[in-house]
């Protein structure tokens, strides 16, 4: 759940359990919660590094990239953010230079499937995503895929996320990794331990 969701967590937990999720990172939480056997972890998404520096240790810090200019201060990001998230606008970043900067960061890159659907409706061809997928296929960068839901009925089944990635051109193994082992690695880094 992202971008300041105000949904009641009980509803979210019920659907998340039905969809097979065990851990969810939710925006706006102050501490971790366990509801209906689903662990909710606090998450902070921002394009301001100074804001991320003030956040508590056990929170998932995500650096949001809206435009190529957000990548200017990329050397400062190391050690601050756990992963980088590409917004709907950033999926159309043109040059491979920006993707190179993302690779240089060495952080996993998060892509929300709902954002991809939205961007596909608006534009059709997504250059940034195309570059990113070819970089992921070369093994230079790790991809994390999430549903990018802001409401409980926007959650996606993991199988749907994997199939969408495969249709976009990601290898089956990398698509599976993007939903299972790659997010688990990030969460382990937050000292929660993969469940």
């Amino acid at each position, binding site marked *: 759940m992202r971008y300041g969701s105000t949904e009641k967590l009980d509803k979210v937990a019920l659907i998340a359990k039905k969809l097979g999720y065990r851990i969810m990172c939710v925006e706006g939480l102050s501490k971790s919660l366990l509801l209906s056997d689903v662990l909710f972890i606090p998450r902070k998404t921002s394009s301001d590094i100074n804001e991320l520096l003030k956040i508590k240790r056990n929170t998932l810090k995500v650096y949001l990239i809206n435009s190529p200019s957000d990548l200017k201060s990329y050397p400062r990001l190391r050690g601050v953010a756990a992963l980088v998230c590409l917004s709907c606008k950033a999926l159309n970043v043109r040059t491979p230079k920006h993707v190179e900067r993302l690779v240089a960061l060495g952080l996993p890159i998060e892509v929300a499937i709902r954002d991809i659907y939205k961007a596909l409706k608006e534009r059709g061809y997504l250059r940034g995503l195309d570059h990113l997928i070819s970089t992921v296929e070369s093994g230079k960068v790790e991809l994390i895929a999430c549903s990018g839901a802001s409401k409980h009925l926007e959650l996606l089944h993991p*199988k749907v996320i994997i*199939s969408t990635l495969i249709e976009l051109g990601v290898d089956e193994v990398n698509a599976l990794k993007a939903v299972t082992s790659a997010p688990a690695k990030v969460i382990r880094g937050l000292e929660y331990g993969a469940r």
Partner: protein
Amino acid sequence: MVPDSTSITALVFLSLVLALVAILVSIFLIVRYMSIAKHLKLISEALSGKALKRFVKAIEERKSKKIRKRYLIFEILIYGNEVNPQYSMERAKVEGAIKESFRELFGSLALSRSGISLVYFNVKDMKGVLRFKAPYRTKIITALGYVKEINGVRVIVVPLGISGTLKKALSKLRK
């Protein structure tokens, strides 16, 4: 020094034996490493009429490779206050919504080739079985995630599993 006739015949015999061994070894190697044994078997089988017919049929079947059908079991989740308790989902609308999302993502041509059809739908459980052609598996699952609303109500379509026969799909559904 002129060799006698017995030594000449012995030499000739020895060279003949060597040549024969060389031929046998080369034939053995050719048969072993160039998989000619398979072809030899085929040729010998093809000599009989029945086997010839079977062979031709097998080649024809290989050419017209039959595309297998698959059955996807899914469930529709509806939550929220906006849903009327008397609300029921019609089978045609469910099928229409899935097909429309597929068409929006992959186009009309892929939709016609995928052979999507709703085989079974239980209005009470909100569970159903969707038939499609096997190569379109990932496309269908992607399209299920793209379905946003059916009959004006926000929903999530959850894929529960895929099976090869309708019988197995229905038994999975009832579990």
